Structure formats: structure tokens, C-alpha cells
């Protein structure tokens, strides 16, 4: 199933790049229900439906809509399903997409449910790895906030379908929860932990960076110390393999030096672009325009 979605995305990539035109979703309406702010995910879904000839129906601002008047998510979904062919939902509470799917007559695409899931991000991460590196026999280092970062947790679980060598780089306070590490090992992944960027990046195909949030630290000094230790710079990259790719879900703060952008390692802007063909594939599949 995952591979089929990735294959479909690859077929649609030229349309995403606007090298080819398509109207396979002409006459279809995608309702975009974001109960939380987002730019990338929302815009790439909107681009995806438009590139395939469909239209977008936006919820507008939550505080002036009926939700502000206390309407339940269940009711909102039932109403909006009547206006659209599929609904993209971002909601601050865990399980919101699952609930929505119980009340919707059209497909629901989960664009993030609180600390729960953000599956389209995981698909685009996998797609990026497949396009820019390789999924089979992957050696990947994940760096930054591995404790709270759901993106990296989901990606690791997804990689367990392919098998991978995973190196986790994080400060002591932001290590990946032991239950997750055990789970990953039980699924056949090789997992090692380190707090040294230098050693972690030497032998990997992909370095996946994440943001370390200031709020996680007692004071600014402590945060700065950690942030500096996890920072990736052109100098540090000298010890990396030439084909090593750096990914980041964006937005970045200080963890990737802008000097890295011009190196062949930088891959995060491609990654954010790949959100478009991946979401096009999901839309085309759930709306029945492709099989």
C-alpha cells in the first residue's frame, strides 16, 4: 500500500512541477478544515487539488465560523461532507480524524491530530528518501528532539517496513522514549543512540534534522548549549559521505546553518516540494481518479 502511494506520486511528479497539465480531479471539491494554523500542509494540499483540476473549499477562520458557536466536530463534518468530495482535517485533539471518519460520507485525510498522527508528512518523508536516496538498506541518522517529535517517531515506524539502520542523535533530555526504541528493535530495525553529531553523520545516507524547541529547556543558556551541539554546518559536513542527504520537516530555526543550503547535501526544500505529488497521489486515489 505504501509503495503504491509512492509509485502514484512519482507518476504525478511532472504535473506537480507544472511540466504537464491534468484535470483528473475536475469537478471535485476538496474541503480544507484546519482547526489549527498551518502553512505548508494546508498550501500543499491546496496546490495538489488545483494541479489536478479540482477546487478548494476553505473553512475560513475558526473564530468566525459555526465552530466558535460550539458546533461539534461530528456535526461540522456531516455538513461539510455534503459540500465536498473529500475533507482534509487538521485538529488539535488526538483521534479527531478517526472520529471524523465515523461521521463523514466522504474520505477524510488526516493532516495532523494533536500529538497523534500526521501521516501525509510520513508519506512525503518516505517519498523524499526514495527519490533522493533509497529506502532499502537505508542508513539514517535522526537528530534533534526525538522525545516529543511525532514526525520522527512515525518515520521510524514507517521505515520498519523496509528495514534500516537508525542512529539517534539527541541531548539526554530529548532522547527517544525507550518504549518506542524497543518497539523499533522488535520490528527488526538496528537502533543506536549517540549524542555526537560528528560520529553520527559519518556513515549515513540520510540525516533527518528536527527542531529543538526552546520551551523544552529550563533556561536560554541550557537551550543554546544543546542547540549548538546539534547544529549542522558546512564544516561538519566535510566528514559526511558525498551522497548524504539532509532532510528537515521545516520550519527550521538555527539547527541547519544557511551555509548548508548551497551544498549538494541539502534536500529539505525538495522534501517540502515532494509534499505536493504525495498529496496529489492521495487525493487522486481516495477520490477514485486513479487506482
Amino acid at each position, binding site marked *: 500500500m505504501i509503495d503504491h502511494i509512492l509509485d502514484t506520486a512519482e507518476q504525478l511528479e511532472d504535473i506537480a512541477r507544472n511540466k504537464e497539465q491534468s484535470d483528473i480531479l475536475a469537478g471535485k471539491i476538496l474541503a480544507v478544515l484546519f482547526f489549527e494554523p498551518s502553512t505548508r500542509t494546508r498550501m500543499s494540499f491546496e496546490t495538489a487539488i488545483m494541479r489536478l483540476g479540482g477546487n478548494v473549499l476553505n473553512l475560513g477562520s475558526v473564530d468566525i465560523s459555526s465552530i466558535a458557536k460550539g458546533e*461539534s466536530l*461530528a456535526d461540522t463534518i456531516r455538513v461539510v461532507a455534503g459540500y465536498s468530495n473529500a475533507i482534509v482535517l487538521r485538529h488539535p*485533539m*488526538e483521534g479527531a480524524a478517526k472520529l471524523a471518519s465515523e461521521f463523514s460520507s466522504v474520505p477524510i485525510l488526516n493532516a495532523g491530530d494533536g500529538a*497523534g498522527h500526521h501521516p501525509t508528512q510520513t508519506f512525503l518523508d518516505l517519498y523524499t528518501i526514495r527519490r533522493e536516496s533509497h529506502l532499502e538498506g537505508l542508513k539514517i541518522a535522526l537528530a534533534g528532539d526525538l522525545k516529543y517529535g511525532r514526525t520522527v517517531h512515525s518515520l521510524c515506524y514507517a521505515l520498519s517496513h523496509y528495514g534500516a539502520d537508525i542512529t539517534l542523535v539527541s541531548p539526554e533530555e530529548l532522547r527517544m522514549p525507550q518504549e518506542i526504541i524497543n518497539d523499533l528493535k522488535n520490528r527488526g530495525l538496528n537502533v543506536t543512540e549517540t549524542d555526537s553529531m560528528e560520529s553520527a553523520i559519518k556513515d549515513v545516507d540520510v540525516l533527518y534534522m528536527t527542531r529543538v524547541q526552546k520551551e523544552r529547556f529550563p533556561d536560554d543558556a541550557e537551550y543554546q548549549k544543546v542547540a549548538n551541539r546539534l547544529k549542522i554546518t558546512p564544516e561538519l559536513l566535510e566528514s559526511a559521505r558525498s551522497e548524504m542527504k539532509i532532510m528537515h520537516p521545516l520550519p527550521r530555526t538555527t539547527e541547519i546553518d544557511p551555509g548548508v543550503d548551497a551544498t549538494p547535501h541539502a534536500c529539505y526544500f525538495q522534501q517540502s516540494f515532494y509534499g505536493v505529488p504525495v498529496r496529489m497521489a492521495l487525493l487522486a486515489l481516495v477520490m477514485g481518479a486513479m487506482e
Partner: protein
Amino acid sequence: MSASKKEIRVQPIENGTVIDHITAGQALNVLKILGISGVSSGVVSVLINAPGEAGNKDVVKIEGRELEADEADRISLIAPNATINIIRDFEVQEKKNVEIPRHVEGIVKCINSNCISNSNEPVASKFEVRNLKSGIELRCDYCERVISENIAEHLL
């Protein structure tokens, strides 16, 4: 000394259900799961910490009501060794163990305060039940959070 003298501390019931071998201390939670409260009709007697062959146990006797299998099975979440005895005409007519259901709805509250099932939505909480060596685990259908301890404390 006859068994009946030792065992039956309350008056025999004519028709109804005796839930025996309830984990000691869980009788009131059993009533809660079954939705039995003071306003329910019919006599309900509760024995707490009654001595049994395998240590103390609780017993609940419900007059005039025969528990359905799916009602009885919910009890297994907090009293996996409970036995259900259907009494007709003062005699035990049927005896069965409770079976751990695969899925439960509307009995337990999710421990994740940010779970959509804890908000004002028109849905019952729903859990997948897993029977592990370490005990019973409930996994929320919505947020996937697992309750592995003190299930009784999270009854709705």
C-alpha cells in the same frame, strides 16, 4: 457443617444472577459497570471480602434479572475470574466464566485528556481489549493511548 451454611450469607434468591469469585474489593465497580444503582429496581446484595477457597472474593447477587453474556463479559475488565450463575427456582441453572471481550464501548474513560472522545462529541469511548500476560490492556480507538493499570479507576 454444610456448604450452604458456610457459603450463603444472604437469603437464597429465587430467580436472578449470582456473580461469584469477583476480585476482592471490586464488587461496587461491578455494579457500576452493570449500571446498577440505588434507583434500579429489585434487590441486590453485595458481599465484600467473603472468604473463598482461593482467598477473599466479592459476590454480587441480583434478584429478578438474568445477565446477558455481553453484560457479563464487561465485568472481566476488573474481575477476570468472576463466574456468572443464573439462578432459577432457587437452583443454579447455568454457570459460566466471564470472557474478555475484544472491544468495549462506553465503559471506560480515556486517560488522555486531549483525546477527542473526552470532548463534547456525540460518541462513546471505545477501546480494543488486549489480554496480555501482564494483565488486561485497553487501547483507545481514537487516540491509541493504552490503559494498562487501574482500569477500575477509569470507569465512566
